[in-house]
C-alpha cells in the first residue's frame, strides 16, 4: 500500500474537525472542553499516521481516538468537581399513580423514524438532551451516543451497576417525555 503524503493526511484530518467538535460538544456540554478534546485527538492522530495506514475509514478512526479523550476529560472533571447526586424527585413519579399505573396512557408516535431526517427534530432532541441533569445526561450519552457498555461506564464514573441502570432509566423516560411534549404531541 502506498503511504499517504503527510500534507494530504493533515488536510483530511483537519477537514473532520467540525464533525469531531460536534460529536464532543454533545458529550461534554462545555464548548471549551469539547475543543480541547478534539485538539488532543488531532495531535494524537497526526503523530500516529502510520497506525492509520490501511484502515478503512478516517472518521471512524478519529472518532475512536476522540472517545478515549472524552472519557479522559470526564474522568478528570469528575475528580476535580464531583457532581452532586441527582436523587429525589425526577419527574418519573408524576407519570404513574400510587399503584404504578400510567396517569395518562401514552400513545404511539406518528412516524418517528421519518423525523430522524428533519433538522428541526434533531435540534429538538439536542434541546431535550441538554435539559437532562448533568450526570444523568453524561451516563446516557456515554451509553447511547458513544455506545459504551454499562459496565465500562460504571467503572469510569465510579458508580454501581444498579445506579447506572437507574440513571439510564430516568434519562430515557425524561427524553421520551420531553420529545413527546416538544415534538410529537402536535404532529
Amino acid at each position, binding site marked *: 500500500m502506498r503511504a499517504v503524503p503527510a500534507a494530504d493526511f493533515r488536510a483530511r484530518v483537519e477537514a473532520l474537525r467540525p464533525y469531531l467538535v460536534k460529536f464532543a460538544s454533545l458529550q461534554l456540554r462545555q464548548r471549551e472542553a469539547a475543543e480541547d478534546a478534539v485538539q488532543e485527538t488531532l495531535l494524537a492522530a497526526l503523530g500516529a499516521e502510520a497506525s492509520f495506514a490501511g484502515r478503512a475509514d478516517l472518521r471512524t478512526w478519529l472518532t475512536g481516538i476522540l472517545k478515549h479523550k472524552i472519557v479522559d476529560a470526564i474522568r478528570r472533571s469528575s475528580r476535580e468537581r464531583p457532581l452532586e447526586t441527582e436523587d429525589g424527585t425526577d419527574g418519573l413519579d408524576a407519570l404513574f399513580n400510587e399503584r404504578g399505573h400510567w396517569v395518562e*396512557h401514552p400513545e404511539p408516535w406518528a412516524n418517528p423514524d421519518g423525523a430522524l431526517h428533519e433538522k428541526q427534530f434533531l435540534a429538538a432532541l439536542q434541546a431535550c438532551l441538554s435539559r437532562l441533569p448533568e450526570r444523568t445526561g453524561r451516563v446516557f450519552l456515554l451509553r*447511547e*451516543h458513544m455506545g459504551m457498555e454499562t459496565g465500562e461506564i460504571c467503572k469510569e464514573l465510579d458508580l454501581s451497576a444498579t445506579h447506572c441502570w437507574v440513571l439510564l432509566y430516568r434519562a430515557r423516560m425524561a427524553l*421520551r417525555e420531553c420529545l413527546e411534549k416538544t415534538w410529537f404531541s402536535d404532529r
Partner: protein
Amino acid sequence: MNLSCKEATRLMSQSQDRELSLGERAALKLHLAMCRGCRAVSEQLAFLRRALRGLGD
C-alpha cells in the same frame, strides 16, 4: 408476577443495558400483551436508541 406499568418501563429500559432473566422477560412480555400504553413506550425507547446512535452523522 403481575408488573405495574412503572415496573414494566423499568425493565424495558434495563433490557437495553443487561440481559433480563427468564422470569423478567416473561413478565414483561405478558404485561406488554395487555397494556397498550406500555407497548407505545416500548417502541419509543427503541426509537430513542436508533435516534442517538445516528446523532451527529
